[in-house]
């Protein structure tokens, strides 16, 4: 019943899909708890005024009653004509909060104050918007599972200026946030470029070829440190030699070839970690998931595509 009422309320003025401008049909107003206490206090004050025939007491009570009415309009006006939009959400790893960024534009020459944005599951944030200004508000939505995360309805609420009246409206973000799988924390090192696959997939002599230098990382094998370069300039940072698997030396991160006792989600986690390792190492790598393969490549685009496939693997799209 309540849910139905809420759905009906939210459907007034059309679906609240972003981007939208808050017009009067989308804004709801009701007194707050403080407002109700205020009303009761006014009744008590009115009785006092009647009882003691206090003419100015009447004036005071009526002034406060009028103030309540004025507060209603001011609160309503604090949301009216706000322009809302969303920014494309950046993918995050499961476990990290997804950042749902709502842009709020104040096209009018009066400031907006104390507008609270909230979303089911996300802690609310408060924004003030100067006249003519555009601002963003970031809602941090916790994530647990990989895949698409559809943000819930954003609720915009304000009690400004008097706190007696609550005006609120809804906005529904349309864009989903991609949640990458969380990488396995203690994962084995990257598998070697697989010679066994050479014949099958590419052919070639399997010799690694020196390809360049990059900054040393603690995890790099000492065998790959460019000692000669260091000997020439001991003050310079250590460098690591990078080798490129040419031809048959390709690195394939293969779902099927992980140990059989790993559950599918654990495999995804390990592959995710490897994708990150390989990307950090600047290697070319391919990703093989059951029924799909991503040809070897390097760079951010490859990493994002690989993570995306891992995020969505096995999920209905």
């Amino acid at each position, binding site marked *: 019943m309540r849910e139905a009422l809420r759905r009906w309320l939210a459907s007034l003025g059309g679906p609240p899909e972003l981007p939208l401008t808050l017009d009067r049909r989308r804004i709801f107003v009701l007194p707050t708890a403080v407002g109700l206490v205020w009303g009761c206090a006014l009744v008590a004050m009115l009785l006092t005024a009647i009882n003691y025939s*206090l003419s100015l007491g009447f*004036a005071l009570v009526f002034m406060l009653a009028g103030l309540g009415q*004025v507060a209603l309009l001011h609160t309503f006006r604090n949301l009216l004509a706000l322009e809302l939009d969303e920014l494309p959400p950046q993918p995050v790893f499961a476990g990290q909060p997804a950042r749902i960024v709502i842009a709020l534009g104040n096209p009018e020459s009066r400031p907006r104050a104390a507008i609270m944005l909230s979303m089911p599951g996300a802690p609310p944030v408060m924004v003030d918007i100067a006249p003519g200004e555009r601002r963003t508000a970031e809602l941090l939505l916790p994530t647990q599972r990989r895949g698409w995360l559809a943000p819930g309805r954003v609720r915009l609420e304000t009690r400004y200026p008097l706190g007696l009246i609550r005006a609120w409206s809804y906005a529904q973000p349309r864009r989903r946030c991609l949640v990458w799988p969380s990488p396995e924390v203690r994962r084995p090192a990257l598998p070697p470029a697989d010679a066994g696959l050479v014949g099958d997939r590419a052919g070639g002599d399997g010799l690694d070829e020196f390809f360049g230098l990059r900054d040393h990382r603690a995890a790099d094998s000492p065998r790959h440190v460019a000692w000669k370069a260091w000997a020439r300039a001991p003050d310079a940072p250590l460098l690591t030699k990078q080798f490129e698997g040419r031809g048959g030396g390709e690195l394939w991160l293969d779902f099927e070839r992980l140990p059989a006792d790993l559950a599918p989600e654990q495999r995804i986690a390990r592959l995710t970690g490897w994708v990150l390792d390989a990307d950090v190492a600047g290697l070319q790598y391919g990703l093989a998931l059951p029924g799909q393969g991503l040809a070897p490549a390097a760079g951010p685009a490859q990493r994002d595509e690989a993570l995306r496939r891992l995020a969505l693997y096995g999920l209905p799209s």
Partner: protein
Amino acid sequence: MMQLLRPRATKDEALGRARVAWLMAVAACALAPHAEYLPPWLDAVALLLFIWRLAQWHLGWPGASRAVKILVVIACCAGVALSFGRLFGREPGVALLTLLLVLKLHELRSVRDGHTVVLLGYFMLLAAFLDSQEPAIAVLLFGSMVVITAALIALTGPPAAVGALLRRSAFMLLQATPFMLVLFVLFPRVPGPLWGLPVDAHGARSGLSDSMEPGSISQLSLSGEIAFRARFDGALPARRELYWRGPVLTDFDGRVWRQGASARQVGRALPGSLEGTRTAYEITLEPHGKPWLFALESVAALPADARITDDWQVVRRDVVRDRRRDRFESVTSARPGRDEWSGWLKAARQLPASGNPRARALAQSLRDQADSDAEVVAAALHLFRREPYVYTLTPPLLGSDAVDQFMFETRRGFCEHYAGAFVFLMRAAGVPARVVTGYLGGELNPVDNFIVVRQSEAHAWAEVWLAEEGWRRVDPTAAILPERVERGLAALPSSEPVPFAARLDAGWLRALRHRLDAANNAWNQWVLSYDQQKQRELLARMGMQQPDWQTLTAWMASLCAAFAIVLTLWALRRQRREDPLARAWRTFGKRMARTGLPREDWEGPLDYAARVARQRPELAGIADAAATLYAAARYGGADAATAARDIRTLTASLRRHRTRT
């Protein structure tokens, strides 16, 4: 020293230092008007608690511990109970609320605590009206309302400048004013208290009492307070006719005159057949906490809730708690009571069995020399006129046998001495007589034509019953000092401590006082005593005859709705603010128009730049740069603020360009 004065981080961080400051301002505004009326110890406690709180806020002093707060609460409640004798009722209630508000300042942890302070603040403003509703107080308290409302905004909104919050609050209250006016005029007024008022609902008030002894009226005469105001429908009666009848005192115990049984006998029919011209007038009576009303002698028509006693005094069932307005008619020349009941006449001859032998002997000799009661009266008045009696506000104190002492030794007295002595003489001579107290005269305010009667006009005179004419008014004071009747207390020699106001002579000071008084009266008439009756009057004037409360409510609702609609239209009005980029681009176009190349409305920025390049090649660089900036910011996602600034720079360079060519 500077170190001391610099605010330090304190526990106020939870709510915000600015908010705490606002709440302290609320307490100051709400409590200051009460200081005058609270017991001094309570003022001191409240002030100390407030200063302590201020020191916590400003100097980072430590706050009160829980135990201390509880102790303070218990001690203060005990103090209130001790000084008022109880914990409930109006005055202890206000005292407790004062303490509550000031203690709440020591308990500010959340916004909710702040809201409590604000609501208490509003309530204390209302309570302040219990003590005084003068115009100046009203202005002050409505000013306080602006501060309290600003505090409410500060509690809800982001930190803002004090001025901005006060302006916002004043603006909102201004918008609320039409609602206040509509409700004030149309809200159905309920007469009287809803529940039994506590005994102290109305503090002690000065005015005539139901007894008189030497000194009681001269005491009252020192007060310049207003007793009532009167306005006559037609011409003003002569001043010597302005005897405003109050309590009639029949019983005498040798010293004190008191009301007799006839004063408690209510329900006498009005003498409808009083001969003479009727004078109609309206009296606005200040509340005096007694059941009687004042009217000119002799009253011929009464307000509906008033009755007349057997000694011709106008009374109500209830005491007069609020300022009230009544219409009366009187026939000033009439003498009622020709057919007075013998029981009352007997009471009017009663004297104590003994005492004042010399006065009794004098009365006997007057009786012996006279043929009729009327001659006794005339002889006694002659006596007062002949002997060197002095009319003074500061008569010597009298011991036992006060009448003898006054008549034969001191011979100095105020009206109550003369009236008392005269009535004593009459009774001793067998003439029915009694003391009448009330007011004599009044001052006409030429500004609003109200006659103002002050406590300093309190008077006592005598009434004797003569078989042929009934009760005749005899004013022995007039025999001593005839000017007293015509000029009031100003007739007294300048050495007498007459209230300043009663002596004011003509001149600007008097004119100013009249003006102030008229303004005060208008305030009383239209704001403070706006009651059911006044409401009916006003509505009748606006064409609503005898509206019932449903009609009033309907009108009230529709007018409020009308104001709400006006306000809503205001709220819905769009106040678009052109963004800086668009404004900069428009200014650029305007400046370019001066060079003879206005931008057409349909022209896109890049098209326009191309046209400029074709027609005015020397401006091509600037136009192209501006158009590119605008297009990049508007359509390409470049930063709008930077682009706007750059376009403004280009516009300025355009001016240089033009002056050069």
